[in-house]
């Protein structure tokens, strides 16, 4: 066994990759929000997004 550390490292990487694929992980930056009220379906404009990146060039408010 010439490279025990690399083997361990590789097996862990494979395991994590397999887990990621199974659990459906992704690299997308997502902000989770809880308890969004059902009223959003009637009034989508009232929903305020909590997502960071918005190219707000000339938005008011």
């Amino acid at each position, binding site marked *: 066994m010439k490279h025990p550390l690399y083997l361990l490292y590789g097996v862990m*990487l494979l395991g994590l990759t397999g887990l990621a*694929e199974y659990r459906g992980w992704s690299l997308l930056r997502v902000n989770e929000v809880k308890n*969004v009220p059902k009223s959003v*379906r009637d009034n989508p404009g009232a929903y305020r997004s909590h997502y960071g990146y*918005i190219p707000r060039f000339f938005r008011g408010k």
Partner: protein
Amino acid sequence: MSASAQVRALNCSSCGAPLTVRAFQHTLSVVCGNCLSVLDAKDPNLRVLQRFQERQRVLPRIPMGTRGKVRGDPYEVVGFQVRTITVDGEQYSWSEYLLFNPYKGFRYLTEYQGHWNDVVTLRNVPEVDTGGQRPRARLLGETYDHFQTAEAETTFVLGEFPWQVRVGDRAMVMDFVSPPRILSRESTGSETVWSLGEYMTGAQVWQAFQLPGGPPAAQGVFANQPSPYTGKVRGIWGLWGILTLLLVLVGLLAYTFTGREEVFRRMYSFSPRAGGEVSFVTDVFELKGRPSSAEVKVSTDLSNNWAYFQFALINADTGQAYDFGREVSHYFGRDSDGAWREGGPSDSATVPAVPAGRYYLRVEPEMDAGAAAMRYELVVRRDVPSLGFLFIAAGLLLIPPIFTTVRAVVFSQRRWAESDYASTDSDDGDSGDDD
């Protein structure tokens, strides 16, 4: 039966200081430790072969008379010399310790910058092959590569020798290496002697001679110093191959066993010039099964324009929402180099680990205020594999073997930097195993 051979105690014929001859009848010349004159040990009057000369006294690291075990046999240090070569105007000196055992004969311990070698003279003459890029020597089935040729001058002597030694003696030395061994060919006008050395660390020498303190630290990489990476480079790349194959297998399994089920598809249009509320919600769709990914893909008909989509994937029952955004930009044209394109008309985002349930999308598109209307399609797929993680894992797997290879190559370059071949491409063709 002859009586026990005696160690001889004498007095220097030049300065009168006492001296001892330890190598019995082998010794031909002995150096007075006090005045540094070289005396003829076979002459009853100890005639002076070379007078005392003002020269800087060198202190041997292993004192004369010290005994140690080399290859299982006891040896005594009986002689010491310093030899110097001049390469490109620079002087390099190394030490040689003459070791003696009355039953086993002589051997040498050489030292240079903390690197040691156990050297014996050879009977058999190696074959030298001067054809090819660099000369090579062959002995007992092993091939040695030429490392350096230089003229060595004896610059300091101490103790006794089985030949008539003199400060200023010169010999042409050719070294060939096959780590951890080194073959040296020394020729003077009248004779040629070959010797074979094997690398020793300072720690091994200190252990063999039970010397106090610690050995001098080794600097740089020595000609025949064995590489710690021998075999490791091949081994780690072999393991990399196996691991990468397994990663491909993981990828194939991921692509085979993920559902990639399309759960929603609809066309929309957005006109930034029209006023009013731009955000809207889609119909509810179902995401089934274990918590897995949900991919939202937006395909547009953008032409030299951009659009930004603010998304929220909202669970209709629990109120759990996942906020994310996507920018789509598509620019193209022709210039002097031909057609060019930047971006693309579609993009997708994969929301991770979404539990099963009934969901809808809240969508808020945005474009330049005066832009033309855009038509786009939203497609949602459930349980989609991530190519990104596979690439990341493949990249991370590459790091250790690349790192090891670089270190092996650097070690080899440091070795050959000291050779006659330093300025040329130092990577020798047949050094597949580092070296």
